[in-house]
């Protein structure tokens, strides 16, 4: 699982945002704002984590139970797919 190039995570006035650059500007008219968990997961994927590890780091970081972390992660990954931000490994 890999994030597409050309999306930059930025913190603006305490809000996490994704700024599209390059040809991606055509897909997003403006920025995408992320909540804290989403930004955390974004960074995890950027660092090469796959699903099981993502869930694990989320559990550790936020002291939530595994089921919830799993649901959140799946939800986020689905959103990324929907927004066409993800390259999935074969």
């Amino acid at each position, binding site marked *: 699982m890999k994030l597409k190039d050309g999306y930059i995570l*930025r913190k603006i006035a305490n809000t996490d945002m994704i700024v599209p650059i390059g040809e991606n*500007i055509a897909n997003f008219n*403006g920025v995408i704002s992320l909540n804290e968990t989403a930004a955390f997961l974004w960074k995890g994927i950027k660092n090469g984590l796959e699903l099981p590890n993502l869930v694990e780091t989320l559990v550790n970081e936020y002291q939530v139970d595994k089921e919830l972390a799993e649901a959140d992660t799946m939800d986020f990954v689905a959103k990324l797919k929907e927004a066409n931000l993800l390259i999935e490994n074969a």
Partner: protein
Amino acid sequence: MKNFTDLLERYPINGTFELTARCNLKCKMCLIRIDRDRMEELGGRERTANEWIQLARQVHEAGTIGLLLTGGEPMLRPDFITIYKEVAKMGFLLTLYTNATMVTPEIMKVLKEYPPHMIGITIYGASPETYENVTGNAKAYERMLAGVEQLRKLPSKLILRTTLIKDNIEDLDKISRWACSFGKNVDFNVSRIVTKPVRGGISDVESCRLTPEQNVAMLKERNMDFIVKPFHRYLKEHPEIKMNQRMISQNTYRKDKNFLSDIPFQIIKSEEQGDKKNENSTHKPTLYGCDAGINSYTITWDGKLIGCQLLGDCWTYPLETGFLKAWDEFPEHVFMPPLPAKCMECKVTCNACPATRLAETGLLNGHPAYICKEGILAKEMEEELIDNIKEKIERKKEKYYETL
């Protein structure tokens, strides 16, 4: 001086980098343009590509999201591509202002790789003759057309902007028809007021700008917003006549032969009426009555941090002290004197703001006669329009009751 503990929370969200104040054109009404001689007189130097890139890193770190690269004409710099490429990679919401007459294949290459989110292109006329009269360069017309053709291929949002003066007012219909032929993805803006030059700009604006009377006549003839807005305001105040809205709006403006109803014709409005409000309100004070120095800033061609591109009353030195320090210390330098009694009492929504007052009078709180007159005439026109609307509504009502 303000009490800074009371100041609205500041955050440098939007920045403007004025990469140069020089230009390849010599527009009669340019607020900014200087030449090398004036640069020397002013004692500044244009900042190097490296300095702009370093600064961009700092403002990125400080949380700037919207960044405007402008001039003068930014593409005039031989190192424009270097600056642009490095800055664009960092991840800003990038806007580029240009006159589109210097778009080379090399520049297009980097713009294709990293398209700006928005491009503002200034259009000075609809023929080589007008370009000659306004910019001093007839050939620039064809070059602009070619430049726009190129820039249109990018996924960027395009805004075509024009500033009307005596020399190009006749071209407005042609410009707007051309601008609107590009469809919905291209906006078209006409600036409302031309002020005198700022920060040592060398153009002779006064000889070419429209008189306040011409300006307001132009608004009346051409601008949908100006006609429709007071009407809607009136309707809002009179909920009882809401049902007639459609009928009346048609009668009010569709008939006008000059009325370009399909055109996204918009006025760039001053956000001001600033300290007038602030003085009496319980809101936390700003510095200039607007966003300048609160959530936005400009870095001038010679590397000073100022409130907005039209200001220049005071500054700090981001390249020397680091951006954050320059940003943090900026408010200490701002001294906003109270407005003259005339303006404090005035009810007109004119286009005066500290920057335009400064440009017109040399003082942040000066009384700008030109802008004042325009504002008052516009207000009169608005009242006239409203009277007109009222009359029409009354007549409609009468007819309506007659049929009952």
